[in-house]
Each structure stands twice: as C-alpha cells, then as structure tokens.
C-alpha cells in the first residue's frame, strides 16, 4: 500500500537526530511491547508479512505521529483481536474475561534462545529457474496495490540492473494476506541516482533494492 510507511524520497521530515548513548529501549513498556510481539508469533500463528501490514495499514497522519513501539503495540492488538485471541473489553478491563482459544504452541522460556537463533528463514526450494541474470536491465513495474508490497514507490517505473540473484523466497505480497507463501525469485536491483531522482540529482548515488520477480519486467 502507498501508506505512511513508504517514506523513501519524501521531504519535510527534518534532520536525522542521533541520540548520544541511546538505550536499547526508552521505557519499560517498550520492552514489554517488543517481547510480547515476538512471543505472540507462535500462538497467534501470523507471519512477519501480516505483522508488517498490520503496522503500515493505518492513516498516514497516525502512522507518522506514533512512536515506533506504539505502532508495534497497535499492530499486535489488532492481530490479536482479529485472531479472536483477545477482545476490546478484555483490554479495557486489563484481565482475561473469556476462556482462551486453543493455540498450537506458545513460546517457552527454554526455547527462546533456540527460536531466536533459528530465526525465520524465507528461502524455499524451487524447480523454477530465475528469469533474470546478473547484469540484466529490468524495469520495476508500476504497481499500486492497496495491499502489502515490498516494492517502494520511488523505484516504480524505473530501470535498474540486476546485481545479485538471491534465491527463491516467500512472496510477501501473497503471504501478508493469507495467499500462502507463493515463493518467487528474489533479486538485488541497482538503480542510478539520477534515474530515480532526475537529472539534477547527485550522480554519485546508487540505490539497491531487493525485488521479487513479479515486481520486475525486462527493460527494452
């Protein structure tokens, strides 16, 4: 979706302000929101792409004025409610009011290290061959789905060069919306700055994005 999250190339947000000796978390609640989000992946049964969509799918003004972990929390609440795991009146009360829904598994303390180390690899076996090879010129398609996509708006319609064939990976555009993993070839595509930002832009810039095959067409 062309939402508040798709920030590449937008103006007016001001300078970057690094914080000296920044702590990992800025408040106690941030830690809890972070850990809850990670721990709920198992019982919730949702995937990372659903989580990302739940975060970005809100009015841009709201997205841009919430802090990072406020967005995480809002997405977690949304997914937990959608999944029927909690209800508004329970959050209001701060206590469980209805019996829990049976879930497949929950994250146990003894599994934390193992689960984190394993991560969530997205590479999948395939018997297809990639359409593009390193050095091929490709155009990022002009797509504007209302649903989740990982193709930023600022590269759409522009021509770049394949610089890496990464492998066959879960396709977020499907996976975020219950369409299954639908694995697709994933490439790193390099764009010249002036191609993206116009003739007046800094010619020493090159920008690489990772793009799934359905995002690309051969540049003619």
């Amino acid at each position: 979706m062309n939402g508040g999250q798709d920030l590449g190339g937008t103006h007016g947000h001001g300078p970057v302000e690094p914080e000296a000796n920044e702590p990992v978390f800025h408040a106690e609640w941030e830690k809890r929101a972070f850990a809850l989000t990670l721990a709920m992946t198992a019982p919730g049964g949702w995937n990372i792409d659903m989580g990302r969509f739940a975060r970005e799918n809100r009015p841009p003004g709201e997205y841009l004025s919430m802090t990072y972990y406020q967005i995480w929390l809002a997405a977690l609440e949304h997914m937990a409610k959608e999944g029927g795991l909690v209800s508004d009146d329970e959050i209001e009360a701060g206590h469980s009011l209805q019996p829990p829904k049976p879930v497949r598994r929950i994250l146990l303390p003894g599994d934390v290290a193992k689960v984190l180390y394993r991560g969530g690899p997205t590479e999948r076996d395939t018997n297809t061959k990639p359409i593009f090879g390193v050095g091929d010129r490709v155009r990022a398609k002009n797509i504007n789905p209302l649903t989740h996509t990982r193709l930023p708006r600022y590269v759409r319609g522009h021509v770049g060069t394949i610089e890496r064939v990464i492998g066959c990976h879960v396709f977020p555009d499907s996976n975020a919306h219950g369409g299954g993993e639908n694995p697709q070839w994933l490439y790193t595509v390099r764009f010249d700055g002036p191609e993206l930002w116009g003739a007046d832009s800094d010619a020493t810039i090159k920008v690489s994005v990772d793009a799934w095959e359905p995002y690309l067409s051969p540049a003619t």
Partner: protein
Amino acid sequence: MSGHEHDHHDHDHSELSETQLRVRALESVLTEKGYVDPAALDLLIETYEKKVGPRNGARVVAKAWVDPAYRARLLKDATPAIAEIGYAGRQGEHIVALENTPKLHNMVVCTLCSCYPWPVLGLPPVWYKSAPYRSRAVADPRGVLADFGVTLPKDTEIRIWDSTSEIRYLVLPMRPAGTEGWSEEKLVELVTRDSMIGTGLPKSPKDLAK
C-alpha cells in the same frame, strides 16, 4: 481546533502513560490466557538489551580486518561466515556484507519499515527507524551523512541498500590507518555501530587514546 487534531508535544506525556497502561493490560490478558509465558518475555528482553548488540558485528569486522581468508568468506557469503563466530538467527537469516573502499561507501536503510541485522547489530536505534532517515537516505545520503558530521569526498560513489525484503546488510568499513599490528581485540574497539550501518566511520587510534 477541531476534535481530531492534537498537538503532540502537549500530549506526549499522557499518551505515553496511556500506552503504558495498554501494554500492561495486554500483557495481563495474554498471560492469564496462557498465550505467553512471562519468563519468556523477560528472557527476550534480556537477550536484546544485554546480549545481542553491535559488539557482535564489531567482532566480525575486526576479524575480517586481520584475517584475509575470513574476509573473503565474509564477502562471498556472510551468513555462514558470521555463524562461524556464533551469531545467527532472527532478522539475520540472510546477511550480505558490503565492503567500503576508498572509492565506494555503503549505507543501509529500510524505507518501508525498520529491517536491520539484529544478530550482529542488535535492535536499531530510534533514528534508523525515523521518518527523516527513511525518507532522505535513498535520495540525499550526503545530506544525511552531514547530520552525522560525516563528509565524504565528492567523487566517492555512495551505494544505498534499501533492505526492504529478506537480505540484511552489514557494512564492512575500511580499517583505519595506523593500526598495523593491532590485535583483533583492540581493533574491535574501533568499530562503531554507525560504521557498520554506513552513517559513520570507525574510530581512529587517536579517538581511542582520548
């Protein structure tokens, strides 16, 4: 002013405490229902607050500075090379190392959210997740570098890696001059977090002396 608008600054305080209450409520509900184990939550927090952080990445970089064979393995396929030192997992399943050279400077951003190589750098700082960084890094990296007090030669090529998908990037900065014969342990001290994102350079021996 109509009801739907608000001034952040005035409300920051109450909004935060409201958020605090919401988190607590959610945690209670989820714990009472048995979906989460509070001990697992504590462990998750401890892991990212104390154990996983940019020290990990710094060790990878320092090793690559002293060990040419390791450097070659790292640049060829970073994920297993990093796993050799014991770092792997969540948000680092597919890592690519980017080599800075006198002519080429790499910088990493995620314009769509906050993708970041957790196993080597820990959780990202606030600025990495902020609208100013995410909006400007892809279009005006020199302006962003200026915010960090970094100026690169005019003809240096700047490569931005917008890590919006499965790859997580680790910048391998150039080894500072004047560090010949240094031990890996000592070199680690020079490797800053920002130098592995591309918004900074490693410390110089002079900086360490301070």
